[in-house]
């Protein structure tokens, strides 16, 4: 029997959820909505008496003070609450199989009350009041209330008759006829089964099984597909690439790994082999850091996508070494323009504002529940992220140095711990390796999952106990590819036997293949010696965490899968891990030429400054940060928001991962997607420079700083896309090596392209790319009129537009033939660099807010004529060409000089110059410190060709800092700068021209609450009140 319980906020108490919906409806242009009555619904299956249901309602479901129960589904219940009758009712439930954590909790709590029930389902009901049409109601549902990927929607006050989930699975062992398959068969097979395997790969598999004289089982084929996916194997970055006249055998090894190898730092304890990179922290502890992307799932369901993105990377950390404790989360989002016209959003795509809201809510709900501070991050906006938002989630963990090394031994048992396995997330690894299409939402719904943070929290709590007792020989997380990847990787070099029927399931009806590849969340795979098994299971059991032996490791180098006594797979692990055919790709790159803007000399640049401050990339992210519990765990020593009113933009966070020590970690990120259109090399170099600048600005150093790379790119089967990637990777090598900062971990997400639905005209796309695109762009030699698909697809790396004004980033589908292939929209080349630095003493940290009046302010680092890709040019509607470069030799001197200055306590405030250049940095420091600032552009150390007010104000040249020094430290600071940064012949008393200097005194802090910058002619070119600047900066992002 099903019992229905409905609860809502008590009349008169005011429901913030309802208020939020009303406001959002107005945004959608629905003005007739006068009120919303929101109810939570619960259906309980079980033989309960009316008294028992009443008790459950009273004691569990309905808060006696703030909430009230509503009886019955009839109209009399409908009228209650909120006064006016509702015009429309909508009931929304999670689809069966999409697990809702509330349901598990409710079951457990009912058991506390002594009520045993069969199942619980939860839902939400909205009563929409006022004069709105059915169409408007449906619009509200589609745009605001429900996501068809995970929700089922019923118009009306819906009731459930049964809760049943799944049915019993009837075993069938399916063979896939491969031995005699033709190429057409192979292609069809790969497509039908969602394997994302190329024809060359299918050939390799066919040959392998021909050698075995048998067909593969479906499980075997799936296992190979998962293992060989781009997501798991990084085929592009590790495969041979023909570029210019050389063949790069393995781009990753040739660039990123090589930095680390050549630097050979003894404090790098584990790089590029474990789930995260590990560096030494102190005598006792190591720290690990991993950043993952979760782009495709987040495009379909931003909330579930970002939440499980957090969950996944936290498990990477937990599965690093023999278990690390997560201490910090980071997040970076790239989304479309938040003010994008609603009616221009293509089908199958969510509006950027909804995407961002969902992403933030997902990170918030998962990260906060896990008790991990989310404190470091950024938001970028570009029209090309519209259909393909990027979500980067990172986790820093701490583990004893003794637990860094791991490895299972033959005979160890395979213990699966954590959540149960369901049909969620099937084919995530292969799905994420392909491009998105409008149909992705329907076809790949199963790839989207809803996380349960508390299940994962319990898992972290217990795994760490098991790890501390030394009961593990290895551990890894179940991520993309599920058990197939986790066990497959752990068993490499050994062998394993797995009994799939032992895997605990959420509901009946999963086939063994589904069990094997399900990416159900919150699971870890542990290798445990049989003698430790009982203790391990006991520890898990004490805190109600499922832990089940599902097999053991062997020595026969084969992977055996069994189910119900049948043998389903007997795979050669050597073939599985090394049988992947290498495909040579071609890369090319020619510098594009963009138009330069019409620059008009102005008397005043205040308006430009305020507009840049209000842009999404620059503006205050307080609306996001305040939703994150960024101080939990009690280790945050320099918070993401700093300054007189706790709301200024800190450069990096500093935390103490070990509470009894004042040793700390500075964590930052750098990203410069706007430069990538001009040159991905400069983009990557700038991202590294920025990440390091941010670490230095808070008092970090280059002695122990490590980097992480996350490449997100368009379709790299296109040679120009790949050429851009090669250039970016080369910059990583050059710049990181010069700075002495090794890479310790990385990840790539390629194929971030969206196949546009038929009927979207080219001119529709034109607006999505940087304006002012000019003749001479990459498309110029490759005309793009007409459907692409042939090799002439115009997708320049960076999605640069072609000469005809056709949109950048738009091209034919990869390797496709024929005119029927759709246009695609590629993201701009996007490289996120994350940096982590060990700081000996967090009490030497410096924040970016100006501290007092009357102190000298220095600009360290030279300003060049580099407005290409700048925000200033963006305002002028152009991209330009002079993209900021990095001189890492000089740069290193600058970073080290500042590091020493901070160590000696000479610096009151320090802020790096990046987006918006000097003007933005000065404004941010001033309003964050509520302290006036007066500066002279004539004093700015700058190149000879940069002697123009707008260049000095807005150039985004790298390796520059604005530094406030106390008057009493002025001499010491200047002496230090002279000794570190000035050539001998220019030592005092000769006063050199600014164009020869790497640093100079450029201004003073004042008592007035204004930012005044005098131009080269001595007249003020910026003279704004701090209140106005701050208001502009704070107004950029409302969620």
């Amino acid at each position, binding site marked *: 029997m099903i019992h229905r319980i409905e609860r809502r906020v008590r009349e008169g108490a005011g429901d*913030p*959820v309802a208020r939020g919906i009303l406001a959002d409806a107005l945004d959608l242009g629905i003005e007739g909505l006068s009120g919303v009555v929101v109810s939570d619904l619960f259906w309980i299956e079980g033989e309960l008496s009316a008294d028992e249901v009443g008790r459950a309602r009273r004691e569990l479901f309905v808060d006696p003070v703030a909430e009230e129960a509503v009886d019955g589904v009839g109209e009399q219940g409908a009228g209650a609450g909120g006064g006016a009758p509702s015009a429309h009712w909508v009931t929304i439930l999670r689809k069966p199989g999409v697990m809702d954590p509330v349901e598990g909790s409710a079951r457990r709590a009912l058991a506390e009350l002594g009520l045993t029930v069969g199942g619980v389902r939860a839902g939400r009901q909205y009563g929409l009041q006022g004069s709105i049409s059915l169409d408007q109601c449906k619009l509200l549902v589609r745009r605001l209330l429900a996501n068809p990927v995970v929700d089922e929607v019923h118009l009306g006050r819906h009731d459930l008759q049964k809760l049943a989930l799944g049915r019993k699975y009837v075993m069938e062992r399916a063979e896939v006829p491969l031995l005699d398959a033709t190429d057409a068969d192979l292609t069809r097979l790969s497509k039908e089964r969602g394997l994302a395997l190329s024809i060359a790969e299918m050939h390799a598999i066919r040959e392998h099984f021909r050698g075995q004289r048998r067909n593969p089982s479906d499980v075997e084929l799936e296992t190979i597909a998962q293992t060989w996916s781009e997501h798991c194997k990084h085929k592009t970055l590790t495969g041979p690439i023909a570029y210019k006249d050389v063949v790069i055998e393995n781009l990753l090894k040739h660039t990123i790994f090589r930095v680390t190898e050549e630097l050979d730092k003894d404090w790098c304890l584990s790089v590029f082999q474990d789930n995260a990179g590990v560096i030494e922290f102190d005598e006792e502890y190591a720290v690990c850091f991993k950043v993952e992307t979760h782009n495709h799932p987040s495009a379909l369901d931003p909330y579930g996508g970002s939440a499980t993105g957090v969950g996944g990377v936290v498990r990477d950390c937990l599965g690093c070494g023999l278990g690390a404790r997560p201490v910090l989360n980071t997040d970076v989002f790239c989304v479309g323009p938040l003010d994008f016209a609603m009616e221009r959003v293509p089908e199958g795509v969510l509006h950027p504002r909804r995407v961002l809201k969902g992403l933030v809510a997902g990170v918030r709900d998962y990260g906060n529940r896990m008790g991990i501070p989310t404190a470091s991050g950024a938001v970028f906006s570009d029209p090309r992220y519209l259909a393909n938002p990027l979500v980067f989630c990172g986790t820093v963990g701490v583990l004893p140095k003794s637990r860094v090394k791991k490895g299972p031994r033959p005979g160890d048992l395979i213990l699966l711990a954590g959540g149960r396995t369901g049909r969620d997330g099937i084919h995530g690894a292969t799905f994420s390796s392909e491009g998105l299409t409008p149909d992705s939402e329907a076809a790949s719904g199963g790839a989207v999952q809803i996380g349960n943070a508390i299940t994962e929290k319990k898992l972290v709590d217990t795994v760490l106990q098991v790890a501390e007792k030394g009961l593990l020989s290895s551990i890894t997380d179940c991520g993309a590819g599920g058990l197939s990847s986790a066990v497959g990787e752990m068993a490499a070099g050994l062998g394993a036997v797995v009994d799939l029927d032992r895997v605990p399931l959420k509901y009946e009806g999963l086939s063994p293949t589904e069990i094997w590849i399900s990416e159900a969340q919150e699971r870890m795979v542990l290798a445990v010696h049989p003698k430790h098994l009982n203790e391990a299971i006991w520890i898990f059991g004490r805190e109600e965490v499922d832990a089940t032996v599902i097999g053991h490791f062997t020595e026969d180098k084969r992977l055996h899968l069994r189910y119900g006594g049948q043998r389903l797979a007997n795979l050669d692990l050597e073939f599985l891990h090394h049988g992947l055919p290498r495909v040579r790709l071609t890369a090319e790159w020619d510098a594009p030429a963009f138009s330069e803007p019409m620059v008009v000399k102005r008397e005043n640049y205040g308006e430009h400054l305020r507009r840049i401050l209000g842009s999404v990339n620059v503006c205050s992210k307080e609306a996001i940060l305040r939703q994150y519990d960024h101080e939990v765990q009690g280790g945050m020593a320099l918070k993401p928001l*700093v300054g007189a009113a706790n709301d200024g933009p800190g450069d990096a966070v500093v935390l103490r991962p070990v509470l009894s020590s*004042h040793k700390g970690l500075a964590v930052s990120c750098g990203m410069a997607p706007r430069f990538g259109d001009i040159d991905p090399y400069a983009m990557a170099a700038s991202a590294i420079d920025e990440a390091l600048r941010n670490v230095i600005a808070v008092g970090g150093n280059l002695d122990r700083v490590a980097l992480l790379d996350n490449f997100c790119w368009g379709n790299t089967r296109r040679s120009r896309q790949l050429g851009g990637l090669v250039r970016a990777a080369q910059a990583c090598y050059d710049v990181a090596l010069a700075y002495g900062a090794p890479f310790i971990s990385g990840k790539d997400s390629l194929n971030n392209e969206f196949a546009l639905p038929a009927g979207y005209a080219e001119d529709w796309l034109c607006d999505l790319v940087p304006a002012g695109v000019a003749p001479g762009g990459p498309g110029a030699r490759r005309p793009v009129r007409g459907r692409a698909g042939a090799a002439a697809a115009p997708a320049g790396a960076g999605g640069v537009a072609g000469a005809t004004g056709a949109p950048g980033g738009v091209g034919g589908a990869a390797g496709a033939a024929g005119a029927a292939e759709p246009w695609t929209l590629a993201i701009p080349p996007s490289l996120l660099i994350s940096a982590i630095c060990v700081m000996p003493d967090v009490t030497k940290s410096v924040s970016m807010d100006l501290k007092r009046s009357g102190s000298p302010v220095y600009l360290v680092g030279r300003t060049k004529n580099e407005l290409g890709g700048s925000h200033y040019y963006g305002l002028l509607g152009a991209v330009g060409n002079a993209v900021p470069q990095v001189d890492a030799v000089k740069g290193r001197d600058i970073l080290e000089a500042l590091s020493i200055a901070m160590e000696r306590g000479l610096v009151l405030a320090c802020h790096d110059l990046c987006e918006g250049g000097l003007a933005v940095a000065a404004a941010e420091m001033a309003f964050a410190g509520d302290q006036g600032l007066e500066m002279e552009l004539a004093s700015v150390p700058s190149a000879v060709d940069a002697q123009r007010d707008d260049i000095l104000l807005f150039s985004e040249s790298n390796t520059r800092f604005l530094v406030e020094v106390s008057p009493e430290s002025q001499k010491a600071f200047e002496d230090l700068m002279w000794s570190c940064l000035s050539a001998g012949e220019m030592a005092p008393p000769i006063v050199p021209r600014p164009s020869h200097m790497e640093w100079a005194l450029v201004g003073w802090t004042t008592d007035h609450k204004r930012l005044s910058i005098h131009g080269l002619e001595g007249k003020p070119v910026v003279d704004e009140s701090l209140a106005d600047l701050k208001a502009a900066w704070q107004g950029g992002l409302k969620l």
Partner: protein
Amino acid sequence: MNMPRVVILRTAGTNCDRETQHAFERLDAHVDLIHINRLLETPVALHAYQVLVIPGGFTYGDDLGAGKILSLELRYKLADHLVRFVQDGNLVLGICNGFQVLVKAGLLPGFTLPFSREKKRGTSVRRGRPGRPARASSARGGAGGATALAAWPQEATLTGNDSGRFEARWIRLKVSSDKSEFLKGGTSLYLPVAHGEGKFVPASPLVRDQLRDSGQVVLRYAGPEGGPAGYPGNPNGSVDDIAGVCDPTGRILGLMPHPERFADPTHHPRWTREGLVESPDGLLIFENAVRYAKTKL
């Protein structure tokens, strides 16, 4: 010297346990983190401590309302022992989620609890002896004690913030009564909050009056000049700016702000401007608890 003994109760979704432990350990208290399942197996273990802390977090995901499910476990399974623990003169502290748990369990404001009419603390308070076996009258556990506490009404609640979202920010607090043992000597505090459901609402105007008259509202959100806080000074819309409440004996305290997050000078959001303070505000609460607990040893 015997150290005061503090137990921090932990369960699925607890997440401020370690920093709370650290705050106590700075003050030389002995701290055990104990999972509720262990306490349910051996409830008498509770009586080996002088201070019980229910820390911040999202117990059981706060899925049916913040702190709801843990509050049921306390009501149904530990009521008897909790009552005795307080009657014995020991302290209970609920921070954030812990406050939500105590309110929903009916322990705060706790007008009708058996010890509520007890005289103000003095020599009359009975001494709790660590490790003492449970007394026969209350050691029955199960039904007897459980029914008793389950019958006590929930007199207030902590519900969704007016802003409709989770809020993490630093706020000013005024110590508005000297009734709580945890706040002795305090006048104002600067602490962070981080919660989505922190709006304190009394069940009725009567409860509201009684709270005020009894001096049990011990912490209020304060404006810059000490006046009404307004948003965001009052980050959740709590009635009467209520941020923390104690029981009639002053030995149970629940508060939404996180004192353990201002236990080190580098916790202050503006230490890079204002310098490192000697005595972080949050420590007051732990110092008082430890000092009080020492008198019980």
